[in-house]
């Protein structure tokens, strides 16, 4: 029982970090960036290449993961989303195809085999009598720190408020002196950075391989669909619902672990097309 609670909390924190960057784009641009999982994949590979292949300090590797996420996020916005005028269906098709292409690219450079990432933080901890790796604990804690930081950034800074303003009313934002295009670029960069960071931690507690963009994308889609339009709180709550569902099924029926999330997506879509917390808040 306590085992499930702790595993659930750790997994959910990471899931919330995975989903938040995707949610951010959805609430500001009303498009699903189906190449979002690629940010995680690139983040993971950048970390691997910088810290394990080049042997640079781990912190540099983490920064590289965030950095490549920023570049990839801004590139998608400039090269795909803007030319397509944020038209949802073409954007979704184009980003999904891009994800498959990027996977092929990663296979070309790094090969097909999965890589083992050395833990970012080493050792084991005992939490309430349950043994967890320090790496998992660190991933969850850092996720929380980032999410809390993001919350205050959005609520308390000019640029953060401008991001929510653009998400709620573009004209209202523009006549307040905000340049929506600039805010969009910032949002895509921020989303990319969050995705890249999430990818470093996600790869370090799972595996690094070229197909690793799929699972986080499903988690992120589930969070947006179940949570409705993305508020930070909604994202946290739904990430916990999904995280705990997975931990519980994994301990009773490990074979269907990832399937429940997908069934949840379809179930919510059919029963509540607007999601559980559907409103345009950030």
């Amino acid at each position, binding site marked *: 029982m306590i085992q499930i609670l702790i595993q659930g909390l750790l997994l959910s924190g990471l899931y919330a970090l995975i989903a938040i960057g995707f949610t951010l784009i959805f609430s500001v641009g009303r498009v699903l960036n189906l190449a979002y999982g690629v940010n995680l994949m690139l983040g993971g590979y950048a970390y691997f290449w910088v810290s394990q292949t080049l042997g640079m300090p781990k912190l540099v590797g983490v920064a590289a993961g965030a950095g490549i996420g920023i570049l990839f996020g801004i590139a998608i916005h400039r090269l795909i989303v803007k030319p397509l005028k944020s038209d949802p269906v073409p954007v979704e098709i184009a980003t999904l195809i891009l994800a498959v292409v990027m996977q092929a690219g990663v296979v070309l450079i790094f090969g097909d085999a999965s890589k083992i990432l050395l833990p970012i933080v080493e050792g084991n901890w005992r939490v309430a009598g349950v043994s967890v790796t320090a790496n998992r604990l660190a991933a969850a804690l850092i996720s929380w720190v980032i999410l809390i930081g993001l919350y205050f950034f959005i*609520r308390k800074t*000019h640029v953060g408020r401008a991001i929510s303003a653009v998400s709620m009313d573009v004209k209202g*934002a*523009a*006549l307040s*002196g905000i340049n929506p295009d600039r805010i969009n670029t910032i949002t895509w960069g921020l989303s990319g950075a969050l995705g890249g960071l999430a990818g470093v931690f996600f790869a370090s507690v799972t595996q690094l391989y070229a197909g690793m963009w799929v699972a986080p994308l499903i988690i992120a889609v589930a969070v947006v669909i179940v949570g409705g339009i993305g508020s930070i709180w909604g994202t946290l709550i739904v990430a916990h619902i999904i995280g705990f569902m997975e931990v519980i099924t994994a301990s009773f029926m490990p074979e269907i672990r990832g399937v429940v999330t997908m069934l949840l997506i379809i179930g919510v879509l059919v029963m509540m097309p607007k999601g559980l917390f559907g*409103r345009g808040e950030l």
Partner: protein
Amino acid sequence: MAFLEIDNLSAFYGRAQSLHDVSFDVAQGEIVAVIGTNGAGKSTLMDSIIGMVKNTGAIRLEGADLVGRGSAEIVRMGVGYAPERAHLFPFMAIEDNLLVGGYTARDDIGRNLAHVHELFPVLKERATQETSTLSGGERQMVSVGRALMTSPRLLLVDEPTIGLSPKVCTEIAATLRRLNQEDGLTILITEQNINFAMSLATHVHVLETGHLRVSGTPEELMADDELNKAYFGT
């Protein structure tokens, strides 16, 4: 040189033209009203000044042409805008809506916020209430307040009285007059409520299907028989 010069202004939505060679001036410290019926082009005129419509001709603020500049730059140059339907941020608190208005005039936020609270005390009392739950009058106050947060020298208000009770209209009129007299703010409003416009403005321009038909002081327009027939039915 007038404070604001609208010079042969035309406005286009795609190939449709909504303003045809409109010209008039606004002097500094004046309240000017543009009146016209639905579809006359009032909102198009306001959106043009703030840089949201495709235009030909010129809009000069103290000599600097605004046509072709982006909205963000025009706001920085001193134009504040309370648009039709307010365009507030519905799931943000009143206070946060006002703070977004302070995006460009960051050094003035403290002073501007205190001024807005003084003009509309209810916005201070309800600071944490989301604007999606406000009444029409309160929304209009937030909208004007948000525009004032940009530290404007020219305030644009598009149909401030639309859908509001006579009592709230009187309050809005009093506030606009106060902004004009105490702060010397130059104000351009549009209206369908002709009595409201006549009571507030020193100059009135009548817009009809995108053309400026007549201009004058309220007294001059009241004396115009043809206009009286068309707009007052007398």
